[in-house]
């Protein structure tokens, strides 16, 4: 009896000891900063010799009146709403192609997946060249088809969409891998049976493939959603948020307010909003993903 209690106690102590390094690091770089950020958002920014004071919800009031914040927020929503479904649809299409008995499968898979390996900054610089007005490849192509030049990154109507294209280009290949894994786990006899019944391609997809990749789709969608709200690399490298904030996203605006305006308290308030957004995605994940996938 005595021995058993010691082991039990031992387990509690050992468990925490093993987790200790991770706990300390996670607390110092995730949990404590998150809490401090929220607290900071209720104070003013210290400037030079003027210390910070408690100002309640003033930062949030300023935020609601700040058109750039709303621009960034709405841009970010649009970014998520467009890139997530498109990247997922393309990824599924790619996976179906590459999973089938298509000629040059390896080369195709390579073409689709390579952008994923590229650092975003490198990809962004390549795409900058691709998008250049007048002599960029994209404009050379559309001119060859008789269309007018487009100043892709220099026109507020196209700047954000141009960034989205880069994101989709880079992410679709990554998501393809997840679908590929899911497809390979579909029992072949299901397809065999479908063929016996002379089912059409679309029917097979709708009745067999789609239900089976559904959990993967959800998993990928959640991850893509989280990523969509953390996008910043291509904004820094390609547009700097311009023209006239047309391509500003939340994290980029936070970076700008924090490290170029040095308004740390306002940056904290903006970060709090970002935390709230990510928190709601997390809740969505809990209710959608966990129920559908693990408890099915």
């Amino acid at each position, binding site marked *: 009896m005595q021995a058993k209690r010691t082991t039990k106690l031992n387990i509690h102590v050992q468990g925490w000891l093993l987790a200790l390094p991770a706990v300390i*690091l996670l607390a110092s*770089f995730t949990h404590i900063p998150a809490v401090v950020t929220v607290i900071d958002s209720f104070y003013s920014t210290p400037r030079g010799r003027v210390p910070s004071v408690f100002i309640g919800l003033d930062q949030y009031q300023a935020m609601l009146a700040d058109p750039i914040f709303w621009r960034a927020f709405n841009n970010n929503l649009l970014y998520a709403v467009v890139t997530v479904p498109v990247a997922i649809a393309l990824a599924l299409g790619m996976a179906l192609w590459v999973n089938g008995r298509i000629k040059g499968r390896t080369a195709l898979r390579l073409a689709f997946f390579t952008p994923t390996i*590229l650092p975003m900054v490198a990809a962004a610089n390549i795409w900058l*060249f691709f998008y250049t007005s007048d002599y960029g490849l994209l404009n050379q192509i559309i001119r060859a088809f008789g269309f007018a030049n487009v100043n892709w990154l220099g026109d507020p109507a196209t700047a954000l969409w141009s960034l989205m294209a880069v994101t989709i280009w880079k992410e679709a290949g990554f998501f393809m891998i997840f679908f590929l894994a899911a497809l390979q786990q579909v029992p072949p006899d299901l397809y065999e049976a479908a063929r016996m019944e002379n089912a059409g391609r679309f029917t097979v997809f709708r009745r067999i493939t789609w239900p089976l990749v559904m959990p993967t789709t959800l998993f990928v969608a959640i991850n893509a959603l989280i990523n969509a709200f953390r996008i*910043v690399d291509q904004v820094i490298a390609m547009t700097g948020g311009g023209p006239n904030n047309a391509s500003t996203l939340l994290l980029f605006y936070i970076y700008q307010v924090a490290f170029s305006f040095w308004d740390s308290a306002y940056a904290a308030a903006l*970060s709090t909003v970002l935390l709230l957004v990510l928190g709601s995605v997390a809740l969505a994940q809990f209710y959608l993903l966990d129920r559908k996938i693990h408890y099915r």
Partner: protein
Amino acid sequence: MRMPNRAREIFVTGAAWAFGLLWALPLFYALWAAFHPSAYATHFELSAPLTLQNFIHAWHAAPFPRYFANTIMLVLGIMAAQFVVCTLAAFGLARWKFFGSDILFALILVQLMVTPDVLVLENYRSLQKLGLIDTLTGVGLPYVASAFGIFLLRQTFKSIPKELDDAARMEGASTLQTIWRVYLPLAKPIYVAYGLVSVSYHWNNFLWPLIVTNSVETRPLTVGLQVFASVDQGIDWSVICAAALMTSGPLMIAFLIFQRAFIQSFLRAGIR
């Protein structure tokens, strides 16, 4: 029945190919620009002379060798530290139900959403207090306790039969010895997978190192490339493309060689 099927197959293959080509286009364009003299960067002539000059120019124009060294030290350092920290935590969480372990696990998973770059400002201040600004340790430290790593290894450890664990204990092995002798060897493929994911993530990471590093001695490749590309005096596309390809080169080549293993490991790491 036969003919339309065949026609359809050709159509599908054609579409797939067209799409693949489209996907590869920006890369081909970058390759073209990088391997030809500037004057041909935007003019496509088959007779255009090939050159390595752009790479040589980029290599000498910025301290890329140093950036490479920084990135390599950084990604290997982070990976090693992650292996140790995540293994320990994952083992405890996988094998024992200790006081508060459920809440702990839930709190760990928070980091899947709130990565250190979301809290840039606060984390920057913490590093400042620790005196770790502009150090490779500072770039890596916030990522060492990776929720993804703990989650992944915990799932793996859970699937390892408990009997093996007990057998080792019978022989008098301590917890650490058990992990070392039983769990590590069995989870080896997962470590490979996780290692690859970690390396490619940190090779490509940008915002956090951009903020934390100040000097050539600590700047990783991605930041170095951005610094190199944001010139005040106009851009030479050929050289920028060469630099962009160069910085991603090692990962790309590794990917080409180990393509199958690479994709497998992404699968393994992502799916469980």
